């Protein structure tokens, strides 16, 4: 495609969805939990980019983009079978070992702050090969040296069965990859700097060549990607995340997506 005019303005959500969709890679099945509009956008983008209906995308909040028929258990069974390749997790706190905290701050028995709870993290983090951590608030409050409560650990010692775990952490400022128990700063998003990332990150991390100057800038979504996002992905997203789709893409859902029982 030949683009000579100025590239269209890229929204932060579009950049993050593009980054995540590239992390997803060539897999069979991506599942996205509740209240995760940007990962959902990324998963649908990954599928539309391939154009062959693959990967399967399961948006757990959606009836339409979700094939499960065996009750609330099926997602976890499916992951246990090794049939979910990519999942997304977040945390009230995330530390440099990849541990995530979805429970509380302070002493567990007398906490200062309580989060909703661990959801399925203490299982999915172990059995899904590619878990992408996602947190838009990149601060020393969220990215800490050591979480107060480990909902799910980034790694396990010994012979604990663990085919899965974190592969990356995507924030509003940058992209970290994760390997061997540590994060590496892979790229910094346009408009942000390595110094800023260091300043706002509570844990130690590695850098390619260990020099700030060698950290690349996160690539912008291509015009073709933006077109896909805005024209093909956004209308599908609107069914599940109407507010998000309206706000980011100016797209409205048709109906409420609930197919009525006709018996």
């Amino acid at each position, binding site marked *: 495609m030949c683009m000579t005019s100025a590239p269209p303005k890229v929204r932060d959500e579009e950049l993050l969805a593009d980054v995540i969709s590239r992390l997803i890679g060539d897999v069979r099945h991506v599942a996205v939990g509740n209240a995760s509009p940007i990962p959902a956008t990324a998963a649908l983008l990954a599928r539309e980019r391939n154009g062959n209906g693959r990967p399967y995308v399961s948006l757990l909040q959606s009836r339409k983009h979700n094939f499960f028929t065996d009750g609330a258990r099926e997602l976890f069974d499916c992951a246990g079978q090794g049939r979910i390749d990519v999942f997304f997790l977040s945390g009230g706190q995330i530390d440099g070992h990849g541990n995530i905290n979805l429970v509380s701050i302070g002493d567990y028995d007398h906490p200062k702050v309580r989060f909703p709870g661990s959801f*399925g993290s203490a299982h999915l983090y172990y059995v899904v090969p590619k878990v992408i951590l996602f947190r838009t608030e990149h601060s020393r409050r969220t990215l800490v040296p050591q979480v107060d409560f480990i*909902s799910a650990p980034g790694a396990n010692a010994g012979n604990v069965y663990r085919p899965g775990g974190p592969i990356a952490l995507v924030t509003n400022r940058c992209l970290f990859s994760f390997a061997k128990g540590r994060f590496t700063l892979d790229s910094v998003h346009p408009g942000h700097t390595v110094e800023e990332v260091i300043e706002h990150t509570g844990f130690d991390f590695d850098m390619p060549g260990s020099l700030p100057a060698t950290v690349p800038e996160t690539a912008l979504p291509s015009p073709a990607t933006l077109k896909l996002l805005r024209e093909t992905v956004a209308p599908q997203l609107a069914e599940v995340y109407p507010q998000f789709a309206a706000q980011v893409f100016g797209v409205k859902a048709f109906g409420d997506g609930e197919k009525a029982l006709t018996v």
Partner: protein
Amino acid sequence: MSSIFQSLDDALSAIIDGCMVVVPREVSGVPMAATRALIKRGVKRLHLVALPTSSLQADLLIGAGCIETLETSAVSLGEFGPAPRFSAAILSGTIKMKDATCPALHTALQAAEKGVPFMPLRGLIGSDILKHRSDWKVIDSPFGNDDPIVLLPAIKPDVALIHAAMADRFGNVWIGRQRELATMAHASNKTIATVERIYDGNLLDDPVLAAGTLPGFYVDSVAVAERGAWPLGLPDYYSADADHLAEYAKMAATPEGFAQYLDKYVYDKRAA
């Protein structure tokens, strides 16, 4: 055979103070009309198992002082923010919290469904959830390479409380894809269902409907409660009432606002 259909209050009579009740997650048909009736009646000291998470239902019951122990993987109002009465109760230590992870609760109920004392589950090792659950055990798996694995004890609730689209006069309840409702009923001593409407016929007579039916054999009482999941949604039937949930999130942010919410929407003081 006398009808299995009862008034909502009569249908709920098996839920007595101190009993263990299992309820489904926020999107699987939550018996909210029944929840309001229980609060009105003033039920106390419930051990609530929310399979595997909850939203408004747990928050309301906690705020109204009905819960002694809460066993679940998360309580949240989703896009409407944290569950305020849940958070307040944890911070002030007024309920006993048994933190879990979603598949652990499914597994513990499956153990009860199978009549076995425990079931194993992958994951959990190295998590602080496990550290705080002295009722969970770790063994070295006798299969494979002696790797450690968690064993979860069966959860056998006194009552499973569910809401679904329809039931027939034989007590058969159509649950559709919400198959965890069947596991809940199998695992529990008694099952109470509220439904949108009565199905005129026998759900088991039609092979297609039968595939999504919980047999009346497992069901002890049924009450009709139209829009009984409101303000939450009922799959294949109606969506959640977003405006109401936003209103709840706002009012429940303070104890005073929560009391007003109860007055307005639970204690039938609307006219006052």
